């Protein structure tokens, strides 16, 4: 039974004005540590969320019991919720019928991968390790999202995704690499391990630096992570409406370097394409920042209705568990630059710091886009335009817009960096980002040496 079949059954059980979102997952994740698989997890699930509408009262219920009895209970709970809710005059109604484009993002061979193949691909990552042990996982999944509603809407998308992630780590050394794609054949787990291991070898004997503002090169892993955190408060409409977004009151202003263009590009097949959102609205590409000028944010039906400024949905409603954030850009993409490599970016920096990956980010001041965190698994000094000696993990506290205000360049090539940590139901998304060279990256503390 497809996800759309499940959604239609739920809708049929509901009878009246309603919307059903069905989300299925079949995944395998072979997690390894110390070069052996220690947490292999196979998941099969389908979850249906029913939104029942009574006038302008709305109630929501969710279940993974998709038989007749389970769906009847679902309808009962959603109806009770709707009847208990006060009227919501700003409820925008359910999305109209639509026919979203075929966005792609599905690969039959990836969907067919089973536990034996998933374990074999994890083994390929493990076997490529040298003397430094490796920690990480290989995972692949097929997921389906469908939305059906009493307006006649009925849309579905099948998605595949795969990720190989490796931390090569020993006493006093660690390196990181990751590859994500919707086609597993685009991922070479052995190559991921070799990249992480080569990086780890170079981190032995890490030195410290004094806190202060440095020029820096950020690999795509680090840049994507910062952007993802920044986007939650600043690149969605709810953040603007609630005045915690950096873009509140700044739309139309030049906010960062003119080399920076950021879009949400749901149909770019270099990313993890999405055809429609969790309200069933086709996703539109949205230019967020264009040559340094703040152009817009992403919207869903709820925020567009509440704004009362002529805004319309751009198709960015998220899963129910993420609705606290409002609409979010799930297909962030940063326009590449003209540098051939990270080495060329280091040349442009001259003297500074090279950062592979970040850890445990925390937003200190959403209004100014201030984020803190640690560097991890490959931090180096840049001297005389060359990537030089390794550094210990460093604490940084940066305003993301300030970091992007004076940019030396970006690489010509961009990488797809996985942004999901596989909590809840699987919804593959990531950031397509090049490496970045910035004039300002604020180091505010010194941490431990790399490695285990």
């Amino acid at each position, binding site marked *: 039974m497809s996800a759309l079949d499940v959604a239609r059954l739920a809708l049929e059980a509901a009878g009246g004005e309603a919307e059903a979102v069905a989300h299925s997952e079949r995944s*395998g994740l*072979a997690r*390894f*540590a*110390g070069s*052996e698989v*220690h947490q*292999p*997890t*196979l*998941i*099969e*699930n389908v979850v249906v969320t029913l939104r029942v509408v009574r006038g302008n009262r709305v109630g929501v*219920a*969710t279940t*993974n*019991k998709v038989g007749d009895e389970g769906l009847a*209970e679902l309808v009962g*709970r959603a109806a009770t*919720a709707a009847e*208990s*809710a*006060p009227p919501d005059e*700003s409820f925008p109604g359910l999305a109209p019928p639509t026919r979203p484009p075929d966005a792609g993002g599905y690969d039959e061979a990836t969907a067919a991968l089973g*536990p*034996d193949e998933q*374990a*074999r691909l*994890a083994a390929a990552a*493990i076997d490529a390790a040298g003397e430094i042990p490796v*920690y*990480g*996982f290989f*995972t692949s999944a097929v997921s389906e999202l469908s939305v059906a509603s009493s307006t006649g809407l009925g849309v579905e998308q099948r998605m595949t995704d795969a990720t190989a992630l*490796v*931390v090569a780590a020993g006493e006093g050394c660690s390196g990181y690499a990751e590859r994500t794609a919707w086609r597993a054949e685009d991922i070479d787990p052995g190559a991921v391990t070799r990249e992480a291991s080569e990086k780890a070898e170079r981190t032995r004997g890490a030195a410290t630096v004094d806190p202060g503002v440095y020029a820096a090169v950020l690999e795509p892993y680090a840049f994507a992570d910062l952007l993802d955190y920044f986007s939650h408060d600043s690149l969605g409409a709810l953040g603007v409406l609630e*005045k*915690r977004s950096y873009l509140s009151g700044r739309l139309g202003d030049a906010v960062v370097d003119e080399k920076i263009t950021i879009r949400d590009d749901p149909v770019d097949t270099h990313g993890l394409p999405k055809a429609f959102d969790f309200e069933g609205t086709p996703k539109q590409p949205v230019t967020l920042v264009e040559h340094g000028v703040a152009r817009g944010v992403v919207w869903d039906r709820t925020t567009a209705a509440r704004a009362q400024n002529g805004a319309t949905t751009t198709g960015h409603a998220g899963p129910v568990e993420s609705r606290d954030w409002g609409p979010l850009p799930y297909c962030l993409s940063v326009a590449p630059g003209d540098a051939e490599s990270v080495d060329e970016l280091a040349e442009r920096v001259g003297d500074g710091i090279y950062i592979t990956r970040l*850890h*445990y*980010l*925390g937003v*200190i001041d*959403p*209004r*100014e886009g201030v984020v803190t965190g*640690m560097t*991890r698994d490959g931090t180096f000094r840049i001297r005389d335009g060359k990537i030089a000696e390794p550094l210990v*993990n460093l*604490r940084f*506290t940066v305003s993301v817009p300030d970091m992007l205000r004076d940019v030396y360049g970006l690489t010509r090539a961009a990488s797809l960096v996985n942004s999901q*940590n*596989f*909590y809840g139901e699987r919804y593959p998304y990531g950031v397509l980002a090049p490496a970045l060279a910035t004039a300002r990256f*604020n180091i*505010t*503390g010194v*941490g*431990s040496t790399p490695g*285990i």
Partner: protein
Amino acid sequence: MRELCATAIDVATAAGAEYADARVVVKRDQLVATKNGRVDRMTDSESEGIGVRVLVNGAWGFACDRRLTDEGARNAAQRACTFARAAAGRHSRALAPVEARQGRHESAVERDPFAVSLADKVDLCLRADAALEGGDVIVRQVMVRARREHKILLSSEGTDVEQILTESGAGMDCAAARDGVFQLRSYPSAHVGSSSQAGWEYVDGLRLADEAPRVAEQAAALVRADPCPSGITDVVLDADQVALQVHESVGHPTELDRVYGTEASYAGTSFLKPGDLGSLKYGSEHMNITADPTTPSGLGSFAFDDEGVPAKRTPVVERGCLTGFLTSRETAARIGAGGGGSMRADGWNRMPLVRMTNLHIEPGEGTLDDLLAGVDDGIYMETNRSWSIDDKRLNFQFGTQIAWEIKHGKLGRMLRDATYTGITPEFWGSLDAVAGRDAWQLYGLTNCGKGQPGQSAHVSHGAAPARFRKVQVGVKS
């Protein structure tokens, strides 16, 4: 449900598993949240299924099935064995021996949270929401939640335990903005409010509508407050922030799976080594930390963990010395100490991991005023706002929603954007007082992340205000 677990174990052992356990979990979650006078979210979720964990030739395998049917149980068991056989590596895993237990446990609940109508929950939220209104307040949010988790665990060693755990929780956030300054104030805690393994009496006791005017007043005052200055000074933390400090800088680093590196690819490792047990100086003599899954009303309370190990109170730090780790049966066998008891899974479709249960800092003596009286010039910080710590849990930077300067033992002007930073053992070494039992409170948080695929754990921390000397505060971007 018990029969399905038994079937899964039979199938797994017949397929060659030397050990198997099967958990059936049926979970219901209810959430009502209001924002600015309207219902923002009202959801009622159910999830059920069976998860089967096996050891085949020393390799773990885990698979799950949402169908609570004979076919679902068999399917999960067979797939778990298939994945275990395919797992790469040199496996030789041992489990610390435990006596197979049979039993049943249910949370103590005075008023069933699911018997409280949704309409009453909406009304409670809207009353508190209205009481949050005030000048410069731009976002008012109130939420209440409830969970019931019914789970049965059987193992091939004879474990057969059934538990019904019920949670209730509530909280509110109030955001104010003025002249480009955005500030947030929360009650009773910042992390989706606070929850307890209890009935609706816990939510009633929070008196949200009564607390709301103070919360709104402080949010509005914060947008006019001066930023926290930078410098090295004495700091007094409220119980909420101490709870967060315990969670991040003691709870996670004492998880023995992190010590052995099995979280290296995501949550990180630990600055602790197995050989540090019994000798490492973690902090000052005022630091006493206890893991206690028997704590009444704790979110991490149970009779048996998800390996069937009975709940037991364990000292983790005594008078500043590391004396215990949080363990599974596997990690306990590896270190040769303890017998597990901290394994918890996020529902039926996740593998159990070493998790915090309830981790407390034991109370000292005196009151918050007594702690303040001992500071000539310093900062008092209240309610966590931001948190970040490195992969070994050494270098941290935390921020609070509100602060006040302390001058000559008394609170002075209000400060915003307060942060402090430190290195874990040095910071805990600077602890010179913890307030007494009367100031000790239990906080329940529901967003502790770990594992790949990700798992959220619900844990509680008992904490009292505490004083730290010579702390770096006010880190600037």
